[in-house]
């Protein structure tokens, strides 16, 4: 290095140039990483709020693809409420049916089926993922969506694959859940009822 201590403006220029090269030149970026990890460290860029390019640079270096999703309980509770209201879902599942007569279970299942179906139809648009009939032989092309298609059994070789469609899959095309008023408590899946006479 012929000039170990460049002036501020030279450094600024260097940082500017390095920023874009890091962004667009993978080899250069790898060098920067090496430099940062083991080699002689570059002096850390000055923290100056108006120096936006430097700030951005720091961001890029720190970027780590970690996605954590935590579903809030509200939508789930709302759905439970809907399934209970329309299809008595919680009543049915919470009931001990070990000793119950199959005919009685069947009768109750009709209530649950009809109501839950209505709740689903009204709030979700659900369609099969695969258009073919189950049991048919289907092709899975290269680059298939691994979320939407699950390969099972003898999973070897390279695509395109050929196999039997055992389940068509379901995809929810749209969701429209009720909007809730501010004070509404979705933890109440079904209110207790007291009939006054």
């Amino acid at each position, binding site marked *: 290095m012929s000039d170990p201590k460049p002036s501020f403006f030279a450094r600024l220029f260097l940082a500017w140039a390095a920023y874009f090269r890091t962004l667009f030149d993978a080899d250069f970026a790898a060098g920067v990483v090496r430099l940062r990890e083991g080699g002689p460290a570059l002096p850390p860029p000055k923290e100056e709020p108006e120096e936006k390019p430097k700030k951005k640079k720091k961001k890029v270096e720190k970027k780590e693809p970690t996605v954590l999703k935590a579903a809030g309980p509200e939508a789930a509770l709302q759905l439970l409420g809907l399934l209970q209201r329309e299809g008595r879902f919680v009543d049915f599942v919470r009931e001990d049916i070990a000793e119950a007569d199959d005919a009685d279970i069947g009768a109750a299942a009709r209530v649950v089926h009809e109501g839950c179906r209505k709740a689903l139809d009204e709030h979700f648009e659900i369609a099969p993922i695969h258009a073919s009939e189950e049991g048919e032989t289907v092709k899975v092309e290269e680059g298939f969506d691994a979320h939407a298609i699950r390969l099972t059994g003898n999973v070897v070789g390279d695509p395109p694959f050929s196999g039997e469609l055992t389940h068509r899959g379901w995809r929810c095309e749209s969701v429209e859940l009720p909007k809730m008023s501010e004070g509404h408590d979705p933890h109440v899946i079904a209110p207790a009822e007291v*009939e006054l006479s």
Partner: protein
Amino acid sequence: MSDASYAIGIDLGTTHCALSFVDLDLSEGEEVAQHVLRVPQVTSPGNVEELDLLPSFLYLPKGGELAEDALALPWDARPSFGVGEVARGLGVKTPIRVVASAKSWLCHGGVDRRAPILPPNAPEEVTQVSPLQASILYLEHLRDAWNAKHPDAPLEEQEVVITVPASFDPAARELTAEAAREAGLEDMVLLEEPQAALYSWLQSTDGAWREQVKPGDVILVVDVGGGTTDLSLIAVAEKEGALELHRVAVGDHILLGGDNMDLALAMTVRAKLEKDGKKLDGWQLGALTHGCRAAKEKILADAEIDSVPIVVPSRGSKLVGGSIRTELTREEVTGILVEGFFPKVEASDRPKSRARGALTQLGLPYAQDAGITRHLAAFLAKQVGATEELEGFSLPEGATFLHPTAILFNGGVFNSSLLADRVADVIGAWLEAEGAERARVLDGASLDVAVARGAAYYAYVRRGKGVRIRGGTAQAYYVGVEAAMPAVPGMEPPITAMCVAPFGIEEGTECDPAPQELGLVVGEPVSFRFFGSSVRRDDRVGTMLERWDDDALEELPEIQATLPAEGKTPGDVVPVRLQARVTEVGTLRLEAIPREGGQRWKVELDVRE
């Protein structure tokens, strides 16, 4: 009128309301950009959803009964009542606090429609509302729902058409217009529901209707809604090469609809259950009615199905074992629905009327004969002369009823082709018996929103962009005048009916004042008997009828005029003449004109008791 961006149709129904709209900027000729408003409403306490229909129900909660903001809407954080789905749902378990069928009360001349009488038989603590008030609240809900979504094009500034049953009397129409005005819809107009259904059909053909009907056709519109059956006849004439549609007759008010049919099925199934010792409470009967409706639709849709199981869920959380299983059979559906409501009858059959007894305890004058086909027979026979004045219409010698050549069905009941086919068959048999061809069925969209769609289309064509149905008033109106003769004890003085408004006056037309003068007492309300005739087409203003067939003139609720005492001596009798006018809105207006002074006093069609 010219500032409007949308033409809007509102179906203010007995059981449901709907709003459809045409985007005027995107519509040209018969290419119409039309949609149905998804109406935000509370569906269960604390939950707001958007639905195509707004159930015409109003729930009046007790303070503290529901959480504070359980009825909150996007445009109102703390309503003191619930409208729509939530009201219907809560009302099933707490019927004393729910207002239903307000529209049927609105046209019930026997009650004060501005008085807080709903829900009927409510305990003292419940703050009742008037039928008018309930209608206002439904319209306000639709208005606010629209305005929340279209802040730049408020409903008050759009071209709005509100539908009423063709059989609504002048007072009920006026009350509907008043409700609309109260909701801020000053410039709206009224349209009869069967006409709206026909407009919906016209629009659905994309202009091909001109090939589907021809001059000389008489279209019978059979509109069976949730709570009412509404009949109209529309004649297709030709003028200067273009087809013209004339609404030539409307039927009487028949309080009988799809809900009655589902209830009838439920009652039958309940009787079956009670025979086995199983008792149902009100909520369970509601659930059973719901189950019967679904089961009925399955049976009517598929000829292979002989019975459909119905389960009435338990009220408690024990579903298995606590639920009651039963079934609805094809035999029951055929027996009750097809034979009960659409029996095969002769053209000469008439609805049975029986003395009103305890059955009318609910207060609404429900049709006493459930046989819709018998009502149809009576209607067609009564209107045998409906097309006499039009050119190109002739009935065969000796025809006993008006021969329709086409039928348009409307209303959810006719989603089942079995019922539509039955009606077409019955009428077809009548026609064949008189040597006429069967009436063909026009493929209509008998959807729940057809009336609202037709109304929006009418709001659009009113701007001069398509065919319009000509109609005018479907009745001639008469005021009862007491004959001047010595009083006979125990006998009412005979009255003469004086025609004040002839048949078929178009909107925005003023009649001549009736030449005969009546005496009004200054400072006192004076009531007159009031009559309508849907068959006397030739009477002119001033025609005096001393006697008439019971069938020809129907007595309507009394009307009332009050001359203020200002500048006059109270108790004096002032001679006035009556003048009728049909407003742009489509309501009848009667005014009393004193001989001197040039003032006019409105005659109230809807008299407070």
